[in-house]
């Protein structure tokens, strides 16, 4: 970025300008309301997309910003989902209580495992996150008294928002609820990545070896962001339970962990909106492709993934940003 006049340069204003809302961001969030008008028959899908976007956002915090690759993030999603489900089964049907409980349980589990996570990087880290994911999946599978095992949790009840608004069949409430939760968490995450802590995370991603040499307790930072990320994943899981009134072992599945990495890479990791855009593309593609060929739809996801990674190494948003920069460079 060129600075025309050195004397006029104010580093604070420069950083402030970088954290300001871009017009495209307003447009994006305005567009999230369109399904209510344009696709009222697809609101269930829309709420699934919002939940997936929230889950991807949680992964972006650790993968995109701190450079911590996890292939077991469904563990926290599943913990949130089961927590909300088990609570509602026992009469605690208020969605907000389920949401907070799912967030807290996943966050605690995240904090507990963060002590292991913070000690490793790269391949060992991927193996450990995967291993922890398998551990939790099989624990849930065997704890039938609590989770219902492979039959899924029975007796999950749909609550009413603020004890008044029911979740309807068409998904109006579900999408509105998912979207509001996504937006509120997004605002918090956006603040986080623009904060000194967010800068510390990028420092860890860029050069974890250098961090201690500037006095940074990298492991403490990693523990903190992992806990926050797990909490957000727990919220996403809880919302899924509450909007669908079902919980099965699928919420803890390895495939869910892998898919969310795919979604983030498709959209562009470390770009805040990458997970959101990735979730839209992935979920819509799944919806369309599985309509064409229900058994083989992953073929197209594979093709999409290979094409994006080969042509746009920084994901779809990274590619768009590059195009934008070139266009601006060419027009000036």
């Amino acid at each position, binding site marked *: *970025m060129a*600075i025309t006049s*050195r004397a006029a*340069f104010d*580093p*604070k*204003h*420069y*950083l*402030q300008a970088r*954290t300001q809302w871009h017009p495209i961001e307003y447009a994006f969030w305005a567009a999230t309301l369109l399904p209510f008008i344009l696709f009222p028959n697809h609101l269930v899908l829309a709420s699934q997309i919002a939940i997936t976007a929230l889950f991807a956002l949680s992964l972006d915090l650790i993968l995109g910003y701190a450079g911590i690759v996890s292939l077991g993030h469904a563990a926290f999603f599943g913990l949130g989902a089961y927590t909300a489900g088990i609570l509602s089964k026992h009469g605690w049907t208020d969605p907000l209580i389920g949401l907070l409980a799912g967030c807290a349980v996943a966050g605690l589990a995240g904090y507990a495992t963060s002590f292991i996570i913070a000690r490793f990087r790269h391949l060992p880290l991927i193996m450990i996150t995967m291993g922890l994911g398998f551990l939790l999946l099989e624990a849930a599978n065997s704890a039938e008294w609590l989770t219902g095992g492979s039959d899924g949790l029975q007796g999950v009840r749909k609550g009413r928002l603020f004890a008044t608004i029911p979740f309807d069949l068409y998904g109006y409430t579900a999408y509105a609820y998912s979207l509001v939760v996504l937006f509120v968490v997004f605002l918090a995450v956006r*603040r*986080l990545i*623009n*904060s*000194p*802590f*967010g*800068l*510390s995370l*990028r*420092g860890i991603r*860029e*050069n974890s*070896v*250098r*961090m*201690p*040499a*500037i*006095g*940074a*307790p*990298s492991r*403490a*930072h990693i523990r*903190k962001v992992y806990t*926050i990320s797990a909490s957000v994943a727990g919220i996403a899981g809880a919302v899924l339970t509450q909007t669908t009134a079902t919980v099965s072992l699928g919420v803890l599945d390895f495939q869910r962990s892998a898919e969310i990495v795919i979604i983030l890479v498709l959209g562009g990791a470390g770009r805040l909106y990458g997970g959101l855009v990735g979730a839209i593309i992935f979920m819509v593609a799944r919806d369309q492709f599985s309509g064409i060929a229900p058994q083989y739809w992953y073929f197209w996801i594979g093709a999409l993934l290979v094409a994006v990674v080969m042509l746009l190494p920084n994901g779809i948003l990274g590619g768009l940003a590059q195009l934008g920069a070139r266009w601006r460079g060419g027009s000036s």
Partner: protein
Amino acid sequence: MSGAALSTRRLDKRFGSLVVASDINLVIPQGVRYALIGPNGAGKTTLINLITGMLRPDAGKIILGDADITAFRPDARVKRGLVRTFQINALFPHLNALEAVTLAVCERRGVSGRWWRPLPAYGEAVEEAYAILGSLKLDADCCRLTRELAYGQQRLLEIALALATRPKVLLLDEPAAGVPREESAELFAAIAGLSKDITVLFIEHDMDIVFRFASRIIVMVGGRILLEGTPQEIAADARVREVYLGGEAP
């Protein structure tokens, strides 16, 4: 020893049968510019790694001021004012220079874990980072990504990151490595201009630079300290000439 900014007592380190540091006793008074010289493989970088905690000594003690820091983690040593730079650039490629130095300043100010207020709200930290960049003439390029900076500027950014931690003792591992000779004098002029409150120990191979900028010199050979003294004493020592300064063996 009181009054010393940094001292080591009988530091030992070996990798298997290879002795990389043996019986290292240093007493570095405050404010002095020290050069650490010695042939390749003498253990100079290893010594810096030991002092800064990147390596654990097998035996011996490291004392910063009055405190025994031998068991401290590297980041805890930095917090106490013992800071290093790296021979090979160890920077943050996709942060711009302002962000990188702000990162280090925030860490020192203890606000690096704050996640609720945006970075510009910590205006003093940002201003301080900008001032540090200015003192090293990097301010004009502070918005460029680190990886896009010229190599010499990246070497300066290494030092800027170290300064952001407000070091008491600064260990510079070949600060001018890879920089053309004309520029390296400029770089050392910046180092010489640092506050006299900062004790500096630097590794350097260029003897002109060493004799120009160091007030005392330590010579290491084979993991041991051969000699320590003023530039005149070092230049006059026959053993130094023999093992290092390229003098012919008698």
